[in-house]
């Protein structure tokens, strides 16, 4: 439940259409990952390393609720997503597919693109190693933390439905 890596910083109100364009959604996940956020920062998909942290602004992942958007981010190797706040569907989808996400008001003022961050999902601690400062994200609902630990909704579905 921890991630450490380079911060890739994006802006406000980014729709899922910009995370993965509609004409890319039939690609394999491996190929889709090569196009994540391509219109906003073509360097991102080319250079992102496992564990890197994607930081974005307000209402991240608005528009279409397709779960391939967080899945493609996950496939790039991103270790955690930290946003000012997420669209409801994007937030739900992250836990359902097992991608760590935190909401932290002020995060876009706290980091610069290229900073080294470490993120701990269990207590919401976000440490900026470059500036040596620490902030805490909003706590995550225990139900969603259980889902994340299970690896998403599918492994816990039968239990959730009371049929385990």
């Amino acid at each position, binding site marked *: 439940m921890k991630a450490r890596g380079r911060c890739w910083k994006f802006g406000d*109100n980014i*729709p899922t*259409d*910009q995370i993965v*364009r*509609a004409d890319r*959604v*039939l690609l394999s996940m491996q190929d889709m990952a090569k196009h994540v956020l391509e*219109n906003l920062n073509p360097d991102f998909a080319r250079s992102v390393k496992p564990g890197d942290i994607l930081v974005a602004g*307000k*209402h991240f992942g*608005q*528009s*279409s*609720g*397709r*779960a*391939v958007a967080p899945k493609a981010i996950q496939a790039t190797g991103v270790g955690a997503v930290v946003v000012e*706040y997420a*669209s*409801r*569907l994007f937030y*739900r*989808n992250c836990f*359902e*597919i097992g991608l760590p996400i935190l909401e932290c008001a002020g995060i876009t003022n706290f980091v610069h693109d290229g900073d080294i961050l470490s993120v701990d999902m269990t207590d919401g601690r976000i440490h900026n190693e470059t500036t040596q400062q620490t902030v805490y994200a909003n706590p995550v*609902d225990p*139900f969603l933390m259980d889902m994340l630990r299970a690896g*998403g*909704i*599918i492994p816990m*579905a*039968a239990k*959730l*439905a*009371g*049929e385990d």
Partner: protein
Amino acid sequence: MNLVEKILAKASGRTTVRPGDVVVANVDCLLLHDLSGYITSRVFDNEVRRPMRYPERVVMVFDHHFSPPSEERARMLEENRAFARRHGIHLFDCGSGNIHHVGVRRGFVRPGTIVVGSDSHTPVHGALGCFAAGLGNNSHAGTVMPFGKAWFRVPETIRIELSGTQKKGVVPRDAALWLTGQIGEGGAVYKALQFAGPFIKDLEMWDRWLFPLITIDVGGKCGFIEPDEKTIDFVRSLTTEPFDVITSDEDAEYVELRAYDISDLEPQVAASPTLGNVGPVGKFAGAPVQWAELGGHGGGRLQDIRQAAEILRGRKIAPGVKFNIVPSSREVFAEACQEGLVQTLHEAGCTWFPPSTGSNQAINMGAMANTEAMVSTHARNFPGRNGSPEAKMYLGSAYTVAASALAGKIADPRAYLV
């Protein structure tokens, strides 16, 4: 409790729920379209591998493809058809109409029920007194298809009361667009939005439809309108299936009340890059457009087609403008035929397209080059949804779309209505 809380309580076997509670509830209807349905079907067959528990509750509508534009897409639709046959779910093939309109017209959406879908505009069904929310593919494949259930966090409710009478040339879609700007993108994240007040109460059902439609774009989980006699008559005209009408308690709580008088509103336009970029039509008047369209989740209703015909009757659209009309359902097309609107708009220079979701995401129509612009009744205007990320999309009422098609640029419809 309000109707959303009552529906969630009933469907999860509780007597009461409160905002913040997480419940697992029985789902009455799952609506999928040809794209989200394809993705969901892959997850269900490859990762879940269980039987479909209630195939009669699952509906797939091919609405992004009225006809496949490539072999790859033809293959995808064939896989969807095979999935539908294999699991016994309902399938409405190319040419049926927009997912949400088909869901309503074919009687799958009924008051007091829980409707879910991967399409993010699924909350529109709250117009019929349902609890309706968009969920992700993994919820559908993981819990709805194999168990008939889904998890929900009970949302807090914002009550929006609208009153007043609109002036000539200003229509409910203008009020809905304006309201998007008032609430703001992300202004209601995770909330339920209750649309109420005399203005909403007086609207006919397909105009009420336009209000819960904006829920997702202001960040909400669901939107709803209290069902009344109008709702019951409307649904009874579409289905013989029984349903329980659930209404909010008089003392139901909400976290916020917003009241607006819409009497002074002018026609509204929302310009790319987002819906929040909305203002009176005068702010954008004069911006050139090469394309016009009635279509998508909100457009292509009979009401839109009537408005366009009112402006275009006996006139011709501007040279260089292509005006595409996409009926929301086969029923809408039949009604437009009966009213003579098909001929009127054809003679004005418009082109009729098959019932579908039109150029929503430009899957089989409506892509633009970087130099082009469209004015439409669509629900969204994000860059890259219609071809080039530099192409522009202006959203407005069917009046505004038709007036702009006549002028070849964004135009105030009131100049054409006498």
